C-alpha cells in the first residue's frame, strides 16, 4: 500500500485537526502500541526490560520534558536532572510520610513538586535569555543536589542522602518483576506523551512557540510573556519530576543525590539535540539513540577488534566509545541540526509523493 493521503478528504476541521491526520500513520501508531504493550512482554528478556526498555522510556519522558521547555518554549536549561531528583525525592517522601497514599498519586505529586521548583528556578528567565539563562539553570542543578545532601530530613536521615524506593503496589498488585515495571512505565509514558502532544498543538503550545520565535509579537497579540515562560517551566519540570520518580521507583530502586548530576542533565540535552529540538517524536528517538549506541558499541567494538586481531583492552574500548559518541553528536549538529525526527519527516514527505515525485 502506498503511503499517501489521496482519497482521504477531510470533511470537517475536527478531522483535519487529529493528531495523526493520515490513515497510515494512525495504523502505524496502533501497531506500535500493540507491539509495546502486548508483543514486547511476550518476547523481551529480563535484561532487555531492566537495562534497556525501562531506562529508554524514562529518559524519553525526561527528554520530552526538556523538549517542552527548550524546543517549544525556547528556554535553554541545564537542570533537567535536578528536576528529576526533586520528583524522585518528593515521591519518596510522600510514600514515607503519608499513610496509605496511592503510589500513582505520589508520582503525580512528585511531578507537581518538581513543577513548583521549576517555576522558582524559571523566574530568572523573565530577565535573562540564552546562555545566561543556561547558567542560571546550572545554579538550580547544583543547588538542588546540594540541598538533597545537606538536609537529612529529605532522605529520612539516610547516610549521604541515599533513598530506597518503596514497593509499588497498585490495587493490591505488587509491581515487582521487570515486566510489570515496564508495563507501568509504558502506561504512564504513553499517557503523558499524548498529553504533551495535545498541549503543543493547542493554545498553550502556540504560546510557547510564539514566545520562542518572536517575543515582542507574542506579547502584542496577547500572550503574557511571564505566564507563558513559567508555564513552560512548570510543565517541563513536571515531566522531568515524574521521570525522576520512575527512575527511582521503577529503574534503579535506590538513588542518591549525586546520581542526578550535571552529566545526566547533559545527557538529556543531547537526547533532544540528536532526536530533534521541538519534536515529541524526537524525544523518543533521541533517548533511544543515546541509550542504545553505547550498548551497540559494546557489542560491536570487541567483535571488531577480534576480527581485525587488534590488541584492544577494555579501557581503550570505552575511550573509543566516547570518541565515536562525540563525533556522532558533532556530525548531527552539522548535518541535520533538526535531529533524527526531521530525517524521518523528510523521508515521509518523499514517500508521500513516491513513486511520482513531480
Amino acid at each position, binding site marked *: 500500500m502506498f503511503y499517501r493521503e489521496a482519497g482521504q478528504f477531510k470533511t470537517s*476541521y*475536527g478531522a483535519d*485537526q487529529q493528531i495523526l491526520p493520515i490513515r497510515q500513520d494512525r495504523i502505524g501508531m496502533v501497531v506500535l502500541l500493540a507491539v509495546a504493550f502486548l508483543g514486547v512482554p511476550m518476547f523481551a528478556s529480563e535484561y532487555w526490560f531492566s537495562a534497556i526498555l525501562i531506562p529508554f522510556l524514562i529518559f524519553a519522558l525526561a527528554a520530552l520534558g526538556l523538549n517542552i521547555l527548550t524546543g517549544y518554549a525556547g528556554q535553554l536549561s541545564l537542570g533537567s536532572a535536578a528536576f528529576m531528583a526533586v520528583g524522585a525525592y518528593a515521591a519518596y517522601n510522600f510514600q514515607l510520610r503519608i499513610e496509605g497514599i496511592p503510589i500513582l498519586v505520589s508520582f503525580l505529586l512528585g511531578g507537581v513538586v518538581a513543577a513548583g521548583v521549576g517555576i522558582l528556578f524559571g523566574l530568572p528567565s523573565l530577565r535573562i535569555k540564552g546562555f545566561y539563562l543556561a547558567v542560571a539553570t546550572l545554579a538550580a542543578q547544583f543547588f538542588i543536589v546540594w540541598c538533597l545532601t545537606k538536609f537529612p530530613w529529605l532522605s529520612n536521615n539516610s547516610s549521604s542522602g541515599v533513598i530506597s524506593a518503596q514497593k509499588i503496589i497498585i490495587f493490591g498488585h505488587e509491581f515487582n518483576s521487570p515486566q510489570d515495571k515496564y508495563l507501568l512505565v509504558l502506561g504512564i509514558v504513553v499517557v503523558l506523551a499524548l*498529553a*504533551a502532544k*495535545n*498541549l503543543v498543538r*493547542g*493554545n*498553550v503550545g*502556540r*504560546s510557547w*512557540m*510564539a514566545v*520562542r*520565535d*518572536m517575543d*515582542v*509579537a*507574542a*506579547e*502584542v*497579540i*496577547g*500572550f*503574557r510573556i511571564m505566564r507563558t515562560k513559567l*508555564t513552560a517551566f512548570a*510543565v517541563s519540570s513536571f515531566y522531568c519530576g515524574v521521570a525522576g520518580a520512575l527512575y527511582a521507583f521503577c529503574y534503579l530502586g535506590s538513588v542518591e543525590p549525586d546520581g542526578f548530576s550535571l552529566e545526566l542533565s547533559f545527557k538529556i540535552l543531547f537526547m533532544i539535540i540528536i532526536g530533534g529540538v*521541538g519534536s515529541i517524536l524526537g524525544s523518543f528517538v533521541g533517548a533511544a539513540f543515546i541509550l542504545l549506541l553505547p550498548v551497540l558499541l559494546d557489542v560491536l567494538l570487541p567483535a571488531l577488534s577480534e576480527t581485525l586481531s587488534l590488541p584492544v583492552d577494555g579501557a581503550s574500548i570505552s575511550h573509543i566509545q566516547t570518541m565515536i559518541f562525540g563525533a556522532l553528536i558533532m556530525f548531527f549538529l552539522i548535518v541535520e541540526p533538526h535531529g533524527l525526527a526531521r530525517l524521518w519527516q523528510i523521508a515521509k514527505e518523499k514517500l508521500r509523493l513516491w513513486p511520482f515525485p513531480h
Partner: protein
Amino acid sequence: MARQIGEVIVDLQNISLRFGGVKALTDISFNIREHEIRSIIGPNGAGKSSMLNVINGVYHPQEGKIIYRGEERRKMEPYEAAGQGFARTFQNIALFKGMSVLDNLMTGRNLKMKATLVEQAFFWGRARNEELEHRKKVEEVIDFLEIQHIRKTPVGRLPYGLQKRVELGRALAAEPNLLLLDEPMAGMNVEEKQDMCRFILDVNDQFGTTIVLIEHDMGVVMDISDRVVVLDYGKKIGDGVPDEVKNNPEVIAAYLGTQH
C-alpha cells in the same frame, strides 16, 4: 462609502518619548476616530513606528496622556492593549517562524480561549470545542485573504509578500477594533500592493475596523486615508485630510529636504 466615521476613540495628548538622549517623539497630539483610516507619514526616523509602539503599550512615553474611549489610560502592557482590541503588524515581519500559517493565525485567537492547561492536555471539554470554533473563524480570515493554498505551510518558507499578508491575517484573526499597520506594503511589487490596499479597504469597510496606517507610498496614502498626520524629527508638522496635508508648505519642505 457606507461606513460612518464615528467619535474619537484614541486621543493622544502631548506625547513625548525619549531613548536616553534621543528624542523619538516630542509633544505630539492627535486623535483617532472610530472607523477611519488614519495614516502616519514622515521621513525615515521621524518617529512613526515609535508612535505605534506608544499606542499599543510597547513603549511608555515619559510625558503625555492617552485617552481611550474617554478614559485616561494608565500605563499599559501590550497584552492588555491586545485585550482592549488593539492588533498590529510590524515594519520588519514578526511572524512566528517555526509555525504554520494556520498556527500563526490561531495565535490571534488566544485571548478568546479559556480552556485550562489540564483541559488542553486531554483535549477535552472546552479545549476541544474552542479549537474547532476558533479554527472556523481563522478559516474565514484565510478565505478573506485568499491564502487557502498555504494554510499548512511553515511561514518561514513563504515569499516576503505572502508573509506580510499572513501577518495581517494574524492581526485580523484577533477581530480587532483598532488595527495598527506599520508599512504593510513596504518592499512589495505593484500587484501585491494593490492586493494589500484592497484588503485594508475591505477590512475597514466590511468590519468597520479603525485603522492606523504607516506608509511611505504617497499615492497609496493620499488615496485611501481619511486623515493623515505628518511627523518629522519626532515633531508633528501636519495633520488633516489628504488634500490639506499635500498642500502644507512644512510637509512639502520636509519631504523635499530629506528625500530628494
